[in-house]
């Protein structure tokens, strides 16, 4: 069967680089094909209204990439994007910072104490399984529709990946190393400094990457339902007045920011885990 043959060939080129410089060639090929696919997608999208006859009603909800980029450019050029983006960024930054401040120490504590971990476990499981969105109406009641309900949603979203990965990294520390350090007379603080924290760092960075994604999602969702300012608010208003291109422009801004931040963290991740074979658990 053709399919299995393809599987054979393909996985051989993936796993072994036995054709000399094939690694580099593959890299170039993957980038070329990937770029072509994206360009092709944009072109097809652009051509849709020219090819498909559309009713004027449908046309109202439809937009093409060139219009979206025009709108995005205009928003950037006139500067109308900066003030709502700043509001969103503030909620993102404060919420993420709070999540780090709470998540890391708590994760280390729970990783080092089996008793505390057993006590916190039901709450962490419950909150991590539940979409944090469900608390949004409650948080809006308690904190109003300003900055702080957004911060709370971002915080709740970002906290658990950080907490869980830190905990995993701490718990995963090599018991023999801990014992060695202890035999040389180290105290709990030294154990943490010399063994536990270096071991947990790659896990924490993975947690941070997941947390950034969740935090951005949190900002968008919170601004959709209860806020007065922010890029999400701009997008909702645009949607209800049928400015579809503005919605997509906002989506692109969020996506690009998310990709840049996750990419930076991923670089950090690769740098830090270069010397270790094992990989941190992803989600």
């Amino acid at each position, binding site marked *: *069967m053709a*399919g*299995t043959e*393809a*599987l*054979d060939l*393909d*996985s*051989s*080129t*993936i796993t072994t680089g036995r054709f000399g410089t094939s690694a580099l060639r593959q890299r170039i090929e993957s980038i070329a*094909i*990937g*770029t072509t*696919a*994206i360009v092709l*997608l944009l072109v097809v999208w652009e051509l849709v209204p020219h090819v498909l006859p559309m009713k004027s009603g449908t046309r109202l*909800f439809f937009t093409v990439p060139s219009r979206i980029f025009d709108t995005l450019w205009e928003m950037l050029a006139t500067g109308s994007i900066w003030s709502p983006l700043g509001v969103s960024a503030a909620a993102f930054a404060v919420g993420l910072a709070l999540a780090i401040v709470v998540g890391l120490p708590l994760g280390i504590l729970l990783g*080092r*104490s089996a*008793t505390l971990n*057993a*006590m*916190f*476990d*039901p*709450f962490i*499981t*419950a909150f991590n*399984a*539940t*979409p944090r*969105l*469900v608390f949004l*109406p*409650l948080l*809006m*009641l*308690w904190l109003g529709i300003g900055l702080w309900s957004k911060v709370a949603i971002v915080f709740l979203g970002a906290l658990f990946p950080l907490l869980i990965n830190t905990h995993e990294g701490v718990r995963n520390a090599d*018991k023999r190393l801990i014992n060695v350090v202890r035999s040389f007379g180290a105290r*709990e603080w030294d154990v943490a400094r010399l063994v536990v924290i270096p071991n947990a760092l790659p896990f924490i960075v993975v947690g941070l990457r997941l947390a950034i*994604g969740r935090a951005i*999602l949190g900002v*968008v*969702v919170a601004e*959709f*339902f209860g806020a007065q300012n922010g890029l*999400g608010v701009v*997008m*909702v208003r645009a*949607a209800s007045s049928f400015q*579809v291109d503005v*919605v997509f422009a906002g*989506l692109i801004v*969020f*996506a690009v920011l*998310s*990709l840049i931040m*996750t990419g930076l963290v991923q670089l950090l991740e690769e740098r830090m885990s270069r010397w270790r074979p094992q990989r941190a658990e992803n*989600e």
Partner: protein
Amino acid sequence: MTAAQLTAEPVGEPLPRASFTARHRNALLGGLAVALFFAAWQAIFLILPLNPLFFTTPTQIAAGFVDLVESGDLLHDLAVSAVPFCLGLLAAAVIGVPLGVVMGWRVRIGYALDPVMTVFYASPLVALTPLLVIFFGVGLSGKAIIVFSLAVFPFIFNACAGVRAVDRLLINVVRSLGGRERDIYLKILVPSVLPYIVAGSRIAIGRALIGVLVGEFFAASEGIGYAISRFADIFAIDRMFACILTVMVIAVVLTEAIRWAERTAFPWRAAH
């Protein structure tokens, strides 16, 4: 504290006659913590005069829950939300898994679709909810499509990763021993890809729940998400909490059920 942690590690043979409390230590501690939490919540009203407009007690929540169950509202809302949830999730699996398998199987298709999918996955697709609602209305199809668009990516990426992780050596072994194509599919591909798909479905369920809630917060006239936002609007805090806790319980049950299935069906992956 540290001593307890060291002894909690399974070193060598487990003790033959550990007492009941020792064996169920974690579950007991967890249960105790939850009980303490609710007791403290109930007790805090004795000390602090909190505004009952914004805060409520566990007993009131329980009463609200009983009300909702007896009137049948809760079941009705849950049933209304369950339909788009299941449809969207099912469509996501049916479309996402084959797409992911193809992406993992044919390297060039993978090269072509990977960047596109990554861009979609990274962008907060929830942001398209207003458009989807305008396109597809506030009913079943709109919600199901929101659920689908959020839940499809974990299936795609995990099926793709599963196929890429197939051990080529195993295929050669089956071939050398005279296995047929069918054996390669049933004995190697399916068993190595399935755990990835199940793990993906766990993530997908979480995202599908978000999809249902977003859809219902945004525009709906029934459903559990609508119930939560309506009770918040009319300051029926006790009933709102009852709905929130119901959603939490459902989320935990679904996620843990899949974890359990992963542990039982694929014990060789349980270490991950």
